[in-house]
C-alpha cells in the first residue's frame, strides 16, 4: 500500500517529507523509556553474601517471569514462574522441601503482613503476632543459611498486590499455571547484576565522660557501657532491629545523657571515667568490638574495671539475664551482679545470671562481653535472651520491628543499669537511695527514648551497606558528642570471612500481559475485518465484477490508472 501511496503523482514529494518527519518522530518516541506498569511495588531482596567463600542467600537480582501462587500441582515445572507466597499462610515445610530438593524456581516473592510494620490494635491479635514472629524468624534462619540460585524478594502486602495475588490464584484454579501462551501477570524487576560490596567498613563510635581527678590519684578506673548498633537480617533493607539492638543503643544514649548531667557539675562528678562505645559488626562475632578493644593501649585496657554490654533489652517482662564468662563466684562478677540484683529488687524485676565459658579456639563469639573477656577485661552482657544466639540469629531481622519493643521495658532497663552504675560510682551500695528517681530532674526521659527508638526503627543498619558517613552514624556521633567528650569514630574493615553483595532493594513492576494466542486471534480477526471492508467497499463503489477482476489480473488496474 505504501508503494502505491508514494506513487501518488503530485503529492509524492509532500508524502516523502511527511514520511521523514514521521520517521524522526518515531525515533524520538522510541527513545522514551517505558515505565507504564500498572503496579509498581517496593521490594526488598534477600541478602546475598559469601561466608568463607561459600555462597549464601539469593544469588540473582533480575526478575522477569510470570506469577504463580501456591498450591501447585505436584511435579509442576516452576523454573519459569515467580512463586508468590504470603508469609501469613506460609507452609514452611513446603518451602523447606522445595529448597532442600534444590528445585529451580523462576523467583520467589514473599509477602510480609503489614502487622509487623504497624502496631496492631486489639488483644486477640497478639497471639497471632507471636506465631507470626516465630514463623518469621524460622523463615529468616531458613533463607539466610541456604544458597538460592534465583531471586528472592520481600514485599509488604497491600491492596494492589493482594488483588494481583487473588487474580493469579483464580487463574491457577481455573486452568493451567500462567505461561506466555495463557496470559496472566508478569513480574519484572530490572536491576543490574548484584556486585560484591568493595571492602565493607564498620564504624565504632566512642565517647568519654572523664571523672573528677582528685589529689594523689593519677589515673581513675573506667567503667565501659557498650552496645552494638548494627543489624543483620534476611532483607538488609528491612533489618531495622528495634530490639536487637536498637533498644541497647537507646539505653546507652539515655544513660550517657543522664550521666552527662551528673558529670557536668564538679560536685556530682564521680571518681570513675565512663566510656561509651557504640560498636558495629555485632552480627559477625562482634568483629567491631574486637577491633575497638585492640585499638586501646594497654594502660587504658587495664584501667577498665568492668564493662556492661547492652543487648536486646526492649521486650522483656520480668526477667533479665546477666551473661558472664567468668564463674559467678569471681569476686568482680559477684560485685557487679549484686549491684544489679539489688536495684532489680527495688524495681520489682529479677536479674538472673548465666555463665558460659568461652572457648578461645572457637571463632564464634555469642555475646559482646566475650570479646572483652578475651582481652581479660571483666565484662557482662545484660540481655533479655536467656541462651546465647547462634551466628546471625537475633540480630535484628524481619520481625524485629518497632511494635515488638515495649518502651516501659527499655525504661526499666535504663533505670536498672544507670542506677547500679551510679551506686557503684558514688559508693552508695546497700543504701536505699534513688539517684534517677522518677519525676526528679534526673529521671529517664520517655520522649527522648521514644524518639530515638522511632528513628532507629526506621533505619536499616546492616553494616556493609552503611557508608562511613551514613546519616545514622553521623546522628549517633552527634548525639554522643552532645553528652560526652572526645567522641571519635573508628573505621575498620570486616574480617575476611564475610563478603556482601549490593542491590538490596528494587522496584517490582507487575504487568498484566496478554497471551500470544490472543494477539494471533486478534490479528486474524483484524485481517478478516480489513478484507471484508475492502470487498464491501469495492463491491459498493465499483461492483462485484471489479473485485473479481482484481484477483484475476492484478496489473490491469494499474494499467488503467496510468
Amino acid at each position, binding site marked *: *500500500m505504501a508503494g*502505491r*501511496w508514494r506513487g*501518488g*503523482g*503530485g*503529492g509524492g514529494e*509532500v*508524502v516523502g517529507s*511527511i514520511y521523514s518527519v*514521521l520517521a524522526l*518522530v*518515531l525515533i524520538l*518516541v*522510541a527513545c*522514551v523509556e*517505558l515505565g*507504564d*506498569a*500498572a503496579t509498581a511495588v517496593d521490594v526488598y531482596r534477600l541478602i546475598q553474601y559469601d561466608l568463607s567463600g561459600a555462597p549464601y542467600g539469593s544469588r540473582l537480582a533480575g526478575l522477569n517471569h510470570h506469577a504463580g501462587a501456591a498450591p501447585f500441582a505436584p511435579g509442576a515445572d516452576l523454573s519459569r514462574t515467580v512463586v508468590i507466597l504470603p508469609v501469613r499462610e506460609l507452609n514452611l515445610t513446603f518451602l523447606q522441601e522445595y529448597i532442600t530438593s534444590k528445585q529451580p524456581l523462576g523467583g520467589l516473592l514473599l509477602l510480609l503482613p503489614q502487622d509487623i510494620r504497624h502496631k496492631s490494635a486489639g488483644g486477640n491479635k497478639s497471639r497471632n503476632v507471636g506465631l507470626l514472629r516465630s514463623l518469621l524468624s524460622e523463615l529468616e534462619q531458613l533463607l539466610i543459611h541456604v544458597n538460592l540460585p534465583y531471586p528472592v524478594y520481600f514485599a509488604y502486602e497491600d491492596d494492589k498486590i493482594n488483588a494481583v495475588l487473588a487474580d493469579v490464584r483464580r487463574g491457577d484454579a481455573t486452568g493451567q499455571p500462567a505461561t*506466555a501462551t495463557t*496470559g496472566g501477570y*508478569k513480574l*519484572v524487576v530490572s536491576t543490574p547484576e548484584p556486585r560484591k560490596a568493595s571492602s565493607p567498613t564498620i564504624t565504632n563510635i566512642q565517647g568519654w565522660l572523664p571523672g573528677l581527678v582528685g589529689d594523689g590519684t593519677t589515673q581513675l578506673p573506667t567503667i565501659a557501657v557498650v552496645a552494638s548498633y548494627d543489624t543483620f537480617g534476611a532483607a538488609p533493607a528491612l533489618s531495622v532491629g528495634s530490639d536487637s539492638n536498637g533498644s541497647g543503643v537507646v539505653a546507652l544514649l539515655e544513660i550517657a545523657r543522664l550521666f552527662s548531667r551528673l558529670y557536668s557539675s564538679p560536685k556530682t562528678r564521680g571518681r570513675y571515667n565512663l566510656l561509651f562505645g557504640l560498636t558495629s559488626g555485632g552480627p559477625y562475632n562482634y568483629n567491631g568490638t574486637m577491633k575497638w578493644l585492640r585499638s586501646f593501649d594497654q594502660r587504658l585496657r587495664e584501667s577498665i574495671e568492668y564493662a556492661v554490654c547492652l543487648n536486646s533489652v526492649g521486650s522483656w517482662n520480668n526477667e533479665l539475664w546477666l551473661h558472664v564468662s567468668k564463674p559467678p563466684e569471681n569476686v568482680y562478677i559477684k560485685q557487679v551482679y549484686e549491684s544489679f540484683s539489688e536495684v532489680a529488687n527495688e524495681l520489682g524485676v529479677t536479674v538472673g545470671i548465666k555463665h558460659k565459658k568461652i572457648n578461645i579456639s572457637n571463632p564464634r563469639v555469642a555475646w559482646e562481653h566475650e570479646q572483652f573477656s578475651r582481652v581479660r577485661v571483666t565484662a557482662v552482657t545484660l540481655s533479655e535472651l536467656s541462651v546465647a544466639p547462634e551466628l546471625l540469629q537475633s540480630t535484628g531481622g524481619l520481625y524485629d520491628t518497632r511494635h515488638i519493643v515495649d518502651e516501659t521495658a527499655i525504661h526499666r532497663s535504663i533505670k536498672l543499669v544507670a542506677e547500679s552504675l551510679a551506686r557503684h560510682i558514688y559508693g552508695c551500695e546497700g543504701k536505699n537511695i534513688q539517684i534517677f528517681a522518677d519525676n526528679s530532674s534526673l529521671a529517664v526521659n520517655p520522649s527522648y527514648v521514644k524518639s530515638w527508638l522511632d528513628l532507629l526503627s526506621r533505619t536499616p543498619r546492616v553494616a556493609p551497606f552503611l557508608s562511613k558517613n551514613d546519616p545514622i552514624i553521623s546522628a549517633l556521633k552527634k548525639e554522643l558528642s552532645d553528652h560526652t567528650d572526645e567522641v571519635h569514630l573508628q573505621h575498620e574493615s570486616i574480617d575476611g570471612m564475610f563478603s556482601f553483595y549490593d542491590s538490596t532493594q528494587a522496584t517490582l*513492576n507487575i*504487568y*498484566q*500481559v*496478554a497471551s*500470544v494466542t490472543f*494477539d494471533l486471534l*486478534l*490479528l486474524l480477526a*483484524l*485481517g478478516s475485518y*480489513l478484507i471484508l*471492508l*475492502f*470487498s464491501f*467497499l*469495492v463491491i459498493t*463503489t*465499483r461492483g462485484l465484477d471489479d473485485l473479481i477482476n482484481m484477483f484475476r489480473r492484478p496489473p490491469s*488496474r494499474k494499467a*488503467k*490508472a496510468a
Partner: protein
Amino acid sequence: MTVFHFFNCAILTFGPHAVYYSATPLSEYDTIGTSVKAAIVYLGTTLVKLICLATFLKVPENDSFDPYQELLKALIGFIDVAGLYFALTQLIHRNISQNHKFQAVGLGWAFADSVLHRLAPLWVGARGLEFTWEYIFQGIEANANLVLNLSLAALGSLMWLRKNKPKTLIPIIYACAGVLATMPSITSYLRRALGWHPPKVVAFELASSLVMAFISWQLFAACQRPSI
C-alpha cells in the same frame, strides 16, 4: 509479543484508511494530493483549535464535567467545520469530481486526526508489557471517526458545493451536519459526565457513526437524484 500487539493495534487504527483509499475509486483517480492537502489543513485547524483552547479554557483541576467549559469546547470544536469548509471549497484541486473530492478530503482529515491523536499513545503504550483493552478500543474509535469524518465531509460538500439541491432537504442536511460536528462533545459528555466505561462509549460511537453515515448517504443519494 508486545511489538506484535502494537502492530495489531496499528492495523486496526490505520488499516481502514488505507483500505478505503485502495478499495474505492479514489486510488484510481489518484486523489492522494487532495487527501494530503486536507491533512495539512487539518494540521492548521488543530493548531488554531489548540490556541483557542489554551486561550479560553481553564485547566480542569479534576476530571469532572463542567457544562460551561464543555459548551465552550464544543464551540471551539466548530472550528473543525470551518477547516473542512476551507478544505472543500478553497483548495484548488486537480479536476476531480465532487463525489471523490469529499471522500478524499474526509479520508485525509480522518487519517491526520488518527496520526495526530493516536499514533504517539499507541507507540508508547501498546509496546509496553502491560496489556489493556485501551488501544484496541482506540483503534475501533479511529474506525468510527473515519466514518464520521466521511459523513461530515459528504454533508459539507452537499452544503457548500452542490447548488441545486431539494429545498426540503436543506434543514435536514444542516441539522445532521450540526449533530456530526457536536459528536466529539457528545462522546466527551457521555464519558465524563455520565461516567460511561470505554466499551460502552466506543460502542456508542460506532453505532452513532454508522447511523449518521447511513443518513448522510441517503441524503447524498437524494440530492444526487435530481441532477441525474
